[in-house]
């Protein structure tokens, strides 16, 4: 089971967080800083798995962004490692080269994408088309470079 999914930048600021098990809001920041500290201190030569408390952290770096996934021992590290790549792939596809700003300005959309991929801590969907389908019904795909202007097309009900 996936416990949480974090996207943080190199400065350690959280850019996206999703918890699949309730964690008290006051503990979020503490947990995130702890986790990020551990991940940021790793170099590329080091492996991407860290044992932290009672879960395993799997992290992957994409330019200035770190994606950290916390899982319990029922998940296979390697599979989650690939899953991270998959999720970045999907985000990339939607945002046409995803950047940190994309995630900040379109937090809700990142949530939609991830909610399609992971539900209840389980990976449910890995197919790019199917993940993006609900989102594309709501919004048109973002065009490259148009970070700041989002075209809102409301669904016709």
């Amino acid at each position, binding site marked *: 089971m996936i416990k949480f999914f974090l996207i943080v930048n190199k400065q350690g600021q959280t850019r996206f967080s999703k918890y699949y098990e309730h964690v008290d809001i006051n503990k979020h920041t503490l947990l995130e800083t702890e986790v990020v500290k551990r991940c940021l201190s790793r170099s590329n030569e080091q492996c991407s798995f860290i044992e932290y408390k009672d879960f395993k952290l799997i992290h992957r770096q994409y330019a200035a962004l770190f994606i950290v996934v916390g899982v319990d021992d029922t998940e296979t590290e390697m599979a989650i490692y690939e899953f991270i790549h998959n999720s970045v792939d999907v985000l990339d596809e939607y945002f046409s080269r995803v950047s940190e700003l994309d995630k900040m300005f379109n937090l809700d959309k990142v949530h939609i994408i991830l909610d399609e991929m992971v539900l209840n801590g389980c990976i449910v969907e890995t197919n790019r088309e199917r993940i993006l389908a609900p989102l594309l019904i*709501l919004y048109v795909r973002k065009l490259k470079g148009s970070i700041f202007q989002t075209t809102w097309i409301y669904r016709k009900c």
Partner: protein
Amino acid sequence: MALKMVKGSIDRMFDKNLQDLVRGIRNHKEDEAKYISQCIDEIKQELKQDNIAVKANAVCKLTYLQMLGYDISWAAFNIIEVMSASKFTFKRIGYLAASQSFHEGTDVIMLTTNQIRKDLSSPSQYDTGVALTGLSCFVTPDLARDLANDIMTLMSHTKPYIRKKAVLIMYKVFLKYPESLRPAFPRLKEKLEDPDPGVQSAAVNVICELARRNPKNYLSLAPLFFKLMTSSTNNWVLIKIIKLFGALTPLEPRLGKKLIEPLTNLIHSTSAMSLLYECVNTVIAVLISLSSGMPNHSASIQLCVQKLRILIEDSDQNLKYLGLLAMSKILKTHPKSVQSHKDLILQCLDDKDESIRLRALDLLYGMVSKKNLMEIVKKLMTHVDKAEGTTYRDELLTKIIDICSQSNYQYITNFEWYISILVELTRLEGTRHGHLIAAQMLDVAIRVKAIRKFAVSQMSALLDSAHLLASSTQRNGICEVLYAAAWICGEFSEHLQEPHHTLEAMLRPKVTTLPGHIQAVYVQNVVKLYANILQQKEQAGEAEGAQAATQLMVDRLPQFVQSADLEVQERASCILQLVKHIQKLQAKDVPVAEEVSALFAGELNPVAPKAQKKVPVPEGLDLDAWINEPLSDSESEDERPRAVFHEEEQRRPKHRPSEADEEELARRREARKQEQANNPFYIKSSPSPQKRYQDTPGVEHIPVVQIDLSVPLKVPGLPMSDQYVKLEEERRHRQKLEKDKRRKKRKEKKGRRRHSSLPTESDEDIAPAQRVDIVTEEMPENALPSDEDDKDPNDPYRALDIDLDKPLADSEKLPVQKHRNAETSKSPEKDVPVVEKKSKKPKKKEKKHKEKERNQEKREKKKAEDLDFWLSTTPPPAPVPAPAPSTEELSVNAITTLKDECEDAKTEAQDEEGNAEGQDQDKKSPKQKKKKHKKEKEERTKGKKKSKKQRLGGEEAAGEPVQNGAPEEEPLPVRA
């Protein structure tokens, strides 16, 4: 008025949206907190508006702030308002905020029940989807109870998009409302064979998660899962199933036997590393659960180790790490097969990555033998010198000690070597583990009698150079070693070469800078040493020498009397008076040595750690009962001065029964420890072993091997362990020669019967130079090691330990909304997929609930037999026992698959079905087809590999229908 409204809506145009908020926060880096509180004020204003769009925008911003760590629970009601918006865009924002911020403690959550129910039954699949997604995050027991039936209905929705979500949510519902598990389980099971792979995968996920907690209830599903495992090509699903089997095999060893083959096939065939790793893991688990009786047992272990070696040798650090991790699991049961890869693991110690080095260290722990211990430790010692970070160095240090001391120093053949290793370790700077080294020194010196002389000489050298250890940083952990050194030198002072010299070293003024508990030990052991010197001098008739020693004591002890540490002060002043008295006696030429050494007479014997529990507690003694009732803190004494005494009388009788209450005792003990730790006036129990003066007649008979004194015992400086390695090698060589001689003699006697058997040096051949006095740690009846970790009564998964094969009683049905027709569960929505399946697999119909009831009991029995039958691996599977139209077919299918596979594998081991998708369709005649397909297959696998090199998702057809999950599977992304 109208103008005002227009003005209001114009104002709204200038409301910040999420982008503005994010930008604003970025622009206010200096006063971020102030800016955000300003924004929150604005949001509060916006939430007061009637316009739902404004509210949604506000809630959207709140979600962002929540991510930054701001509490937004105050807006819970507004979030619910947005959730109930009719427009999907707003609804989604509401649900998102709810899923991020709601939890069981949110009281307004009960207001959402009807809204969620409405959304769940909405005609739009996205409404339903978003409700399900949100629900997964904030479902409460109440919500679970009220909505269980609705969600269960959705499990049979026409759209796979909804089905898979509903199936996954059920897991959370089960957790919160365990009563729903039994009624919902048949349908969940049905979903394992859903035509849509996504739904199938979701069901596998849920059942795996359930089964992991209570595996025995799910054993009957094994045939079904087995079938899935052999037929599915979806790696995500495979991994889950294989993990599940790992949990099931300990309960049913026969299952393990059945699994080995398909798993090894998968190991051979798969190119996905994650799957390979999982297979290896499960094979290991299976082999652990199987005690014996596997013909190709060692072969599969060999295969695993081989594959892991490939992983470890890979340049990818992740694979290396996982390889080592899995290797350590094999190590527990098959140390021999791992030991052959010692070179590789030692190599990993040089890795750049610390976590890999730590894993390798873990492995080394299990790999040592008498033969290679010295070599491995030597290697580790070089790493200790090279190591940069203190944490890693400390880890190395503990590992060295762990490795050496494991199972009663089983692998140490030469304790002189070990002592010198310990002494070398004291040279580490800034280690936290001084106490560990100290404990080892004490343990070895006490338990290995033959080594005492050597140990004492080393320890006196340590004491002599104490200034080196304690110089730089006083609170340095390493000075703990001096504690051990002082104690050993004092206790075994008869072995000292120059006691006078050591005495002086221990009385140096520098000693007063050491921590209190060490000084205390110094003071105590100075006296032991002193007693010893007195005796020696008096025996030699050197009255002057004895008096000189006394004078030294009288001169130096006052420095301890002035100590700030109570313990030191008290001991020192007592001893000072004693020595002064002795001085007077010496002046009168009275022999005193006899009496002084009588103070420390008695043999010290090691005692098992839990031996104290063996001593019967005198009747009526309750160490946990208060002698005087403590004044309670909570009640202020001014207000109720009498209450204390009054309550005391009341409480008394309550204490008695609680004596038997173990938990309470443990708790109190813990509390007492805590209190003692915080109490500056409480003298902490020092880690020194208990001294017990008792005559144990059993000690003498323990054979103690005399040391072969080829080592110069008087070592001038600090010792070097290396020289002992050489000496040990020589010793072993000699031993071997002797043995060979003996053997030759024997052989000659026997008449050269087995001249081909070369003398191979095995572990057993090396006799230790010194023997450890092993204290068999007898465990009292009430101190079983497994006692402590009982199941946690608060474990949420315990409630899900439900027998799923029992027939469902009417009372157990899920609560259904009354105003709604109970028929909903059989609405056309549900029937459609069932009908579909019917056409494919007619056996499905028996899953229908109602018909079941009557022959439920019968079937239950059959099920059990079924599993037994499925598991018994008699090669010619008897024709299906009875043409029962029910669950049998499932397992029968599995059997045929299995049988064919067995034959398959027997005839051609390499050509496995693992890499051929859909082979189970043509399982009827695998032999004939196989040869035909061989080439085809090879091509296919090649093609597959190529396509797998593409990035994930790349192979999906772009034009495929979006909602109806096409039944094609997505292979796991594979590392190129």
